[in-house]
């Protein structure tokens, strides 16, 4: 133990033998190699494409001819493009509905499952609710498109058996939006549910016992104790779900083609149409950069607002 070590107030490390030192160096190197590899993948597949997209947004490029620099023209055009502006409104509406339902339904399911005493019952429900998340979104959307088809869908078939009229699930603006939200929530609520189950399972038992001794009922316990305690998880779920929902593509693309009209045309669909169908990669990149900025801004707002309601114990 050296005097300098004590003087600095730090813990004094035991002297290591050369073999131990070598082993630790190897372990350290291995750890950094792992971090380096994932960092490299993030650079190659996330940061570089973002940078390339940002650069491309200042060009006009049809993928075949050489790109032509156009300055901020794509951004100026974007602001006056009703289709793009409308797609942001549509996406925001769908995303807010999806996230709210994911949080409410996910929480309700988690609370109900947590109340089951038998562990195998809890396990069974966890599996059932998580299962849709494992299905391919594209395949599930095709399947749901058939189920909700106005003409030959199963849903309308059973409604007809009950003497009810056909519902234009995918051929009216309201119906299509509602169906898209329903399908998106059905498929992704398992993620939120699992997060909430984990959070509710890790609540401190002594606090809950104290609340019970004070005579609080289940509703009061949930809203006054459990919810504040798991508020960091709710916040995390809301941030992640909103980012995902703002990038909604598969369900509207496959089930409604963005229609009727443009009522379910999301911003990612507009990006796809602009870049890959209309061969305007520069303009498509500009739209994607604006979506990127909107997502950052929305996440920033969520973090600011979170200061008022998220409780970190």
């Amino acid at each position, binding site marked *: 133990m050296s005097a300098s070590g004590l003087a600095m107030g730090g813990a004094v*490390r035991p002297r290591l033998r050369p073999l131990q030192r070598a082993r630790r160096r190897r372990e350290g190197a291995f750890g950094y190699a792992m971090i380096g590899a994932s960092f490299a993948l993030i650079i*190659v597949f996330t940061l570089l494409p973002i940078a390339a997209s940002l650069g491309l947004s200042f060009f006009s490029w049809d993928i075949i001819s050489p790109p032509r620099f156009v300055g901020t023209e794509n951004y100026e055009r974007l602001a006056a493009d009703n289709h793009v502006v409308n797609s942001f409104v549509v996406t925001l509406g769908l995303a807010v509905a999806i996230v709210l339902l994911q949080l409410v339904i996910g929480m309700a399911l988690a609370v109900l499952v947590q109340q089951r005493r038998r562990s195998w019952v809890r396990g069974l429900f966890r599996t059932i609710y998580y299962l849709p998340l494992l299905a391919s979104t594209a395949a599930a959307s095709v399947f749901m498109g058939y189920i909700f088809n106005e003409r030959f869908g199963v849903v309308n078939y059973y409604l007809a058996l009950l003497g009810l009229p056909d519902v234009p699930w995918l051929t009216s603006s309201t119906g299509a939006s509602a169906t898209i939200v329903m399908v998106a929530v059905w498929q992704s609520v398992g993620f939120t549910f699992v997060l909430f189950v984990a959070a509710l399972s890790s609540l401190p038992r002594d606090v809950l016992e104290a609340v019970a001794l004070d005579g609080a009922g289940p509703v009061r316990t949930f809203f006054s104790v459990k919810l504040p305690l798991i508020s960091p998880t709710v916040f995390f779920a809301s941030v992640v779900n909103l980012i995902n929902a703002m990038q909604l593509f598969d369900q509207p693309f496959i089930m409604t083609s963005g229609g009727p009209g443009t009522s379910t045309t999301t911003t990612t669909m507009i990006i796809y149409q602009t870049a890959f169908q209309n061969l305007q990669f520069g303009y498509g990149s500009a739209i994607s950069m604006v979506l990127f900025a909107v997502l950052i801004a929305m996440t920033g707002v969520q973090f600011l607002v979170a200061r008022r309601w998220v409780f970190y114990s």
Partner: protein
Amino acid sequence: MSYPEAALSRRTLLKAGGTGLAMAGLASLAACTSAGSGSGSKTLTVAYFGDQKAADAFRKRIEPVVRKLDKSVTVRVNGTSGTDWNVFFAKLLTQIASGSSPDIVSVATEGLQLMASKDLAMPLDDYVKRDIKELKSYFDDVPASLVEAMMFQGHLYELPTDYNAGNMYYNTALLQQAGVAAPTEHWTIDDFHAASTALARNKNTEAYGWVVRLWGSWTSFLYANGGNLLEEGKYPGGSWLWDAAYKGDPSAQGRSGGWKWGDPTANSAEAVEALQYLLEMKRAGLSPSPDVSGGSDLQNLFAAGRVGMAIGGGFWAGGLANAGMKRGSFDVQFFPEWKSQRHLFGASGFAIFQKSDKKDLAWEVVKELSKPSSFDVIFPGNATTPARQSLLTAERYATTGPQNWQVFGKTLTEFPTTAPIPAPPYYNALATALNQRTTQAISSGDVKSALDGLQRDLEAARSSAGS
């Protein structure tokens, strides 16, 4: 000297990071290499609209055709699936951009001007001029209207192998049950309406079924009503072909260097009336809300006896037979006369890529594929209508039906104003806008407003494309 736990020198960290980057770089390079087109190899690559299973079956069919020309060549067919041609072209163009250019691509009318205007497909003019004698039997057999549809700015880009015109199919049993006589050649829109009304009394069927797309949708009604989505024009030129291949053929008179699609006319009185007519059909319970689709669901519903009448081309014959319909259980007639009995059609063939380093071989393959002996090899089971009129025979339709198969050929010869679908270089944007605005009209019930929107969309698309 002591070492903090898991501490590393900066050099080691950089080495580790460098290794990771190098690995990722190698992975991406490997991905790029595997996507190569095999340029310079003895592999002829064909881009095909269909899933890979269908593409493999197609390869098995055309490989013997290619091997007849050069035994050392192998054929690779890359299948690309999608709901309609616009999706196929979007994916194909992305493949091309990634350096994976095919030698030959199967292209329908929908994408011809797109391919030609981007210099992706090469004009066949020099080859055709060189082999004009050899091609005499081909041009003698193929209507001029189909060949003209494959021209752009005076150049020929494909030898059409097949086509499909928007005729009207009907379920014979359902018509009989409804007490409706089979439509005659010169039936009118009123006859069609009366037949639909009678069919609609059967609550288990849809009197008239349709889908939202460019070919054979409400656009067939638009053509018969004397309108179009775009102003019709023709490119000058093309006399090098017409004079050499169609000399003295009256059907070739007035033919040009291809269709020139001008200003949008999507909100014309004719267009509004045509779409309004179908909306009224829906309101009257004669027609359901259509889906945005390539039409396979509609064909299945028709085959299941759920639809009384629907627009279909020659490809429906094979499709309905495959779905289990017997010959005689359905038939086909011309599209009914409204202001005229003008039909629309789409043709298809094989284009050669500019970037192909096997152009001569590709041309020989294209010629081989256009021969009568090749048609049933590449399109078995009446999956489409042969461009060669000599192949339209009773024998061909003896198994599948329809009994009134002569309609397919006569649509081109008896109605000389029959024209291809409006597919300008900005076809993809047009298809998207058409689908969106049609569903908007059906959903809102406001046809005029929706078509005004379509007009604006098409004007913007045309302006962006620089047409």
